[in-house]
């Protein structure tokens, strides 16, 4: 059972699972701290609660576009590459879609926009992987060139969709709202399911289940269920927030549980070793770019759908926000390390900061300064945590430990230390 394997790098005294360790989940704690601070600030100034259903709905909605992009940006970073072009590609996707709608109708134009995004991603990937130019340079080039392309096709003017069926179709892409059931109820059911699953798994494995590991979620679950008629917390999810959540869950699953994810991490962690182990490194990296381009075009169309128009300078600098969110989430710029869920939390931090400034009515002038400081502090904390981890891992080697080969003579007769001279045929 995976949870029973204690990795040597985990702190000795702590009983937290590894994924909850501060060095692994720092961004989650930082986000929680930020929310607590903002809640206290709003409460003490007599404003409505910060974590009210309305505000939570708002934050999720405001995070959606960034959240979609940060997922694919994280995938590119994990593969060991870098993509600066997504802001321009998003604007290009929107401009293509809106520009072609009069002639192709919404769905045709939408498909062309996505294909165009994928095409730019493919271009990035092929030039980086097969020509061998540094990704930073290539995507800096496409960032500039694609923005130029947007200016050309829009002639520098804002493109607006005239009222009509096409505009309705565009609106429908991001039109509906979905009100969640009571989240306390859902959490209660989830906790009970967790307890049941732990019992089931222990019984299947034939081991006795540890009482607190079952009892704690069970009791909490029952308590939440009992309280749920009185405590109600529902969130109105906008359609774009649903897109984001679905994409995050899907990407997290693929990265964590499939061979595709494993090979992607292997590619970013050590491309040469992965290649020599038979992983199609080039294809994985190109595909990451293609995904990122497609997602960018999709984000661009979503952005335009609510406004009904696209400004040729729209979404300028969006790629840097996405990168900042990914870095906040602990994604390494050198590849092989990162998680889309944590990157999403990074995006939530950036959005919450901005939202908090609005709610508290603090001048927006401070926002950039604070965001920049938060980014550097976060990156510094990751670097220090990583360094400490490496130091610990150096110490865990005990040179006095002896190989245990002799204990299994039937398994490896030739490989026992004395075997060097034993086989003299």
């Amino acid at each position, binding site marked *: 059972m995976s949870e029973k394997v204690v990795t040597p790098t985990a702190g000795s005294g702590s009983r937290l699972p590894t994924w909850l360790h501060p060095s692994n989940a720092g961004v989650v704690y930082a986000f929680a701290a930020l929310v607590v601070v903002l809640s206290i600030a709003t409460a003490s100034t007599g404003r409505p609660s910060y974590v009210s259903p309305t505000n939570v709905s708002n934050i999720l909605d405001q995070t959606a576009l960034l959240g979609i992009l940060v997922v694919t940006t994280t995938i590119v970073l994990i593969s060991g590459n870098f993509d600066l072009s997504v802001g321009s590609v998003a604007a290009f996707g929107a401009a293509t879609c809106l520009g072609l709608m009069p002639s192709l109708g919404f769905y045709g134009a939408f498909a062309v926009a996505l294909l165009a995004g994928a095409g730019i991603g493919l271009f990035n990937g092929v030039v980086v992987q097969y020509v061998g130019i540094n990704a930073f340079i290539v995507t800096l080039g496409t960032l500039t060139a694609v923005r130029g392309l947007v200016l050309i096709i829009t002639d520098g003017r804002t493109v607006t969709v005239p009222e009509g069926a096409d505009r309705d179709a565009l609106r429908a892409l991001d039109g509906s709202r979905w009100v969640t059931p009571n989240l306390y109820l859902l959490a209660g059911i989830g906790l009970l399911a967790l307890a049941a699953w732990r019992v089931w798994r222990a019984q299947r494995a034939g081991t006795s289940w540890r009482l607190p590991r079952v009892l704690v979620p069970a009791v909490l679950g029952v308590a939440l269920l009992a309280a749920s008629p009185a405590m109600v917390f529902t969130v109105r999810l906008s359609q774009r927030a649903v897109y984001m959540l679905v994409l995050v869950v899907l990407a997290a699953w693929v990265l964590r549980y499939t061979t595709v994810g494993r090979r992607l991490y292997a590619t970013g962690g050590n491309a040469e070793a992965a*290649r020599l182990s038979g992983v199609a490194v080039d294809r994985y990296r190109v595909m990451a770019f293609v995904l990122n381009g497609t997602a960018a075009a999709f984000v661009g169309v979503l952005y335009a759908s609510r406004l009904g128009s696209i400004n040729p300078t729209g979404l300028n600098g969006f790629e840097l926000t996405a990168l900042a969110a990914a870095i906040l989430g602990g994604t390494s710029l050198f590849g092989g390390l990162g998680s889309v869920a944590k990157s999403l939390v990074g995006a939530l931090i950036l959005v919450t900061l901005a939202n908090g400034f609005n709610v508290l009515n603090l001048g927006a002038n401070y926002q950039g300064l604070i965001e920049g400081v938060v980014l550097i502090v976060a990156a510094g904390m990751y670097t220090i945590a990583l360094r400490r981890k490496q130091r610990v891992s150096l110490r865990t080697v005990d040179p006095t430990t002896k190989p245990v080969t002799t204990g*299994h003579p039937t398994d490896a007769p030739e*490989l026992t230390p004395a075997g060097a001279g034993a*086989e003299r045929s």
Partner: protein
Amino acid sequence: MTTGAAGEVLLELRAVTKSFPNGTTALRGVDLVVRRGSVHGLVGANGAGKSTLIKCVSGVQPVSTGSIHWAGEECSWSSPGDAQAAGLATIHQHVPLVPTLSALENVFLWRRGPWRSTPQMRVEFDRLVERLGYEIDPDVQVASLPIGTRQMIAILQALALGAELVIMDEPTASLSEAERRIVLDAVRRLAADGTTFVFISHFLDEILEITDHVTVLRDGRALLDEPTATLDEGRLVQAIAGRELLAVERAGGAGSRTGDVLLDVTGIGTRTGVRDVSLHVRAGEIVGLAGLLGSGRSEILDAIFGADRSATGEVTVAGRPVGRSPRAAVKAGFAYVPEDRVQQGLHPAEPLWKNISLPDLGRLSLRRLLPQEQEERALAARAIDELGIVASGPDALPSELSGGNAQKVVFAKWLYADKPVWLLDEPTAGVDVGAKAEILQLVRRLASEGKAIVLACSDFDELLSVATRVLVVRGGRIAHDLDAQQVTEEELIMLAHGLGAGTGEVVHV
């Protein structure tokens, strides 16, 4: 240079221990006396405590108990800079020079002042070069120099700092025979001139040849500490391994010459200089590629495996043609143990079980999509057990392992995937004596299981101990095809240098 008579004690360690906060003890009371003007050999298996000892002496880490005395006085260096100021320089295996600067600039890198180079530096450079006895162009860019010459520049750097004691950590590990000679000659010359050396090496012949005194470390203790004159290779090996290790034997019977041809290579060529290489390997055969550094032996393996994109030619496994990419090669049944295990063989940040399952991930996964982690861990545990990998478990990281154990992990990646053709590029480089014997034994076992094996190795003695046939590689071509039973190490060395049999002298190229 400060004054001091040759033979007086320059560096002394008294009962030095080093333990780490997690309870690991790397040094358990080491006494060591290094005398001025001597070359002091330090040998030991990987993980014996050599690196920790060096770190303590050079001020990187403090000792736990015991004391270090420099020129008679107890010292407490808290940083490598302190040690350097006192006259102790350390040259690491991977020479940290600035590749974009010139040799001159690198030698005087530490010197403060407004100018990149001054005429005075040039004069000093010439004087140092003369002491070293090896000509280096001061204006040549370091990036363009072979690694042996970089070692020389590192030595110059140490001398320019006024170092009285130079610690060299495996200076010859990645050098060709000719470069090795140059480094050894320089050490000998400087030692005669009064500089003291602590010389760490896995090559025991080197240790016996060049040192005056040898200390063998094992499990953090100095087990043997004697003048070199009283030692021989057998005693050293015994002390290092802690057990009677028979010298690698000629196990000619290990390979078969009658199996079916498994690997057939025709007309391989690359842009890196391999030309028209054809070879075939039968099931159960171990074909050795013998060649000097830069002869093209690694390039041939790269080309066969498809790792070199520019490679042309045809490769078939059991009669079926193989596509020209590592992916196709792995699918076709190749196992590849690359030359540089850290850069090319392992994912240092991933646990052992993920490393081991990577080449065979598809087969270990449900519908080739969902990896079965329990099975992967079980596989890693089995590999740790069977190959005797010293690690805390399947979750250990490769970066925690010593060279020999890391190399076994690279073998484990392919061992359970049932690959019929194995390409091994320097599988025993940077591996201690005990692990080396185990790895060679593993290679023999693979052959006896009917695998076809191509083995490139710069230690010809070792190559001959396992190979069935030896192909001498020179200038990117196969120059000779020999039966391993009928050739001696000396003959191989001569053939690899392009000399006919008969002359006893090996020319430095």
